């Protein structure tokens, strides 16, 4: 919203942006990131979604002076850049405890102790990079900082990674720097969290957990890689919860450990790996990053036929996704992820089903009443949401416009191909779990590793 105003300003058209009180501090981060810290703002007090029509009217009347002021009063802009440390500048000398306090006070940690990023430690990471430390992988908003190889190494050190993880760290940052990942929206109120998925032989070589407890902290590779990404979003993208700003996740969640597929199990049953599903060769080392906004309960399924399992997966994974499906319908992109336990995948595959068959079943059999989709969208704040309008615009297939009956069922998963499937977890139990993606925010992006092990 502020970015649109900045585009207008660059085109010579003055702007004012209406920002609600709870978004003021995030707006300041965005304005600074677009190089216009004085971008005019008219503050709507409070939360419009809990205001009735009369309250909205009264508040807008009180906004008019600020709107006029923003559009008509000349604004002086300081065109000087703030002086910041260079990469190799030592910013502090102290004991371990003193380093923790210094970093914590400046909002440079995630609240957990960090490994002190000394130059020798950073250099050990760079030995695994084959890239210039000054190379810029991309720029990360809202704070709009250059994601240098050096800064990746520094945050990798701090997160407790091993130097040999460096190619994965670079690939993760390459993924989140792609426009389709929309890192600038990683501080949105749903509080979505990136999930890294590691594919290829590298997962075994670097001792990623792929089996029981795969999504639990406790294995260094999975845990530190996940922590690195949250730390990097904080320090380079500028996404900080209070007393910082930029991250408006209302309740949010903590970082995800990196997920690695049990590729031996997938190969044994003749299924493609997740990396192959993303278009890579089976032996390629690949990292994929996508958003996760919530998860399903653990899904237990039993039986000797594929249908015994996929019917329950459709019920439980489908219900977990149904509430949030309006976001995928609105933005015409949504990539939920289903992690299927190896013992379940084995039964499904033995019955002749491929991953595509599972996806197709979910697409065809999981529905939600249209009325509920529109109601959930309105409550979030999408006050102009209309399935009919989305279908007419081509964003959704024509079937979503349907008969106009508000109780008509519509598909929860608009496109079967959007559903990701990973085989992982406890081989000794019959459990799966689903992860709900946050539409175009944190869209699934994969990068092949430039790996030197």
């Amino acid at each position, binding site marked *: 919203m502020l970015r649109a105003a900045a585009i*207008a*300003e*660059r085109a010579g058209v003055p702007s004012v*942006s209406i920002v609600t009180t709870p978004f003021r501090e995030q707006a300041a981060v965005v304005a600074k990131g677009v190089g216009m810290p004085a971008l005019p703002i008219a503050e709507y007090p409070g939360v419009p979604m809990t205001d009735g029509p009369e309250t909205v009217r009264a508040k807008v009347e009180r906004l008019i002076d600020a709107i006029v002021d923003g559009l008509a009063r000349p604004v002086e802009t300081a065109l000087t850049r703030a002086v910041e440390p260079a990469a190799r500048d030592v910013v502090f000398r102290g004991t371990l405890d003193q380093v923790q306090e210094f970093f914590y006070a400046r909002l440079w940690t995630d609240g957990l102790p960090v490994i002190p990023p000394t130059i020798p430690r950073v250099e050990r990471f760079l030995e695994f990079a084959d890239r210039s430390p000054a190379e810029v992988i991309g720029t990360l908003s809202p704070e709009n900082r250059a994601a240098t190889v050096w800064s990746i190494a520094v945050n990798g050190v701090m997160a407790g990674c091993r130097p040999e993880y460096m190619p994965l760290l670079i690939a993760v940052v390459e993924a989140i720097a792609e426009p389709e990942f929309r890192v600038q929206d990683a501080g949105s109120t749903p509080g979505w969290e990136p999930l890294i998925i590691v594919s290829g032989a590298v997962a075994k070589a670097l001792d990623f957990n792929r089996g029981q407890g795969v999504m639990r902290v406790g294995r260094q590779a999975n845990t530190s890689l996940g922590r690195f990404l949250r730390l990097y979003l904080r320090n380079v993208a500028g996404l900080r919860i209070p007393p910082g700003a930029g991250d408006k996740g209302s309740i949010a969640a903590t970082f995800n450990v990196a997920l690695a597929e049990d590729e031996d199990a997938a190969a044994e049953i003749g299924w493609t790996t997740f990396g192959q599903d993303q278009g890579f060769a089976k032996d390629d080392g690949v990292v994929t990053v996508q958003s996760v906004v919530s998860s399903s309960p653990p899904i237990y399924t039993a039986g000797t036929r594929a249908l015994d399992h996929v019917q329950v997966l459709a019920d439980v994974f489908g219900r977990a996704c149904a509430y949030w499906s309006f976001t995928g319908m609105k933005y015409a992109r949504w990539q939920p992820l289903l992690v299927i336990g190896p013992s379940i995948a084995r039964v499904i595959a033995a019955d002749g089903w491929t991953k595509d068959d599972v996806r197709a079943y979910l697409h065809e059999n999981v529905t939600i009443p249209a009325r509920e989709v529109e109601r959930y969208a309105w409550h979030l704040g999408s006050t102009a949401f209309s399935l009919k309008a989305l279908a007419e615009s081509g964003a959704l297939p024509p079937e979503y416009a349907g008969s106009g009956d508000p109780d008509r069922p519509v598909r929860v998963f608009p496109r079967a191909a959007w559903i990701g499937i990973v085989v992982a977890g406890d081989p000794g139990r019959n459990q799966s779990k689903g992860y709900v993606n946050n539409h175009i925010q944190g869209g699934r992006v994969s990068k092949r590793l430039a790996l030197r092990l």
Partner: protein
Amino acid sequence: MTTADREPVYEVVWPLAPSAAAPTALASRSPDLAGKTIGELWDYLFKGEEIFPLIRRALAQRYPGVRFVDYETLGSTHGRDEAELAATLPALLRKHGCDAVISAVGA
């Protein structure tokens, strides 16, 4: 000698990265909105369909001849590819003769 004196001392570097934000001047303002054309940029969130008509009415009462290019004409700003928006929005504002824009609602 205290415990702290015997502990190793670490020389640490900055965990942030260089800013890519280029300070940019805002557009020049006209002190009077009378007769001006104001574009509405809406992200289709948070009751803009209630808020924009109220703003239109209030500004029209205060500034004779002010006109509006409504949000439906300019299209949603939410979820758009930023490069695509940057490539198309300036021409759209020129096409409709916008002298100023109001962007709403959120951050």
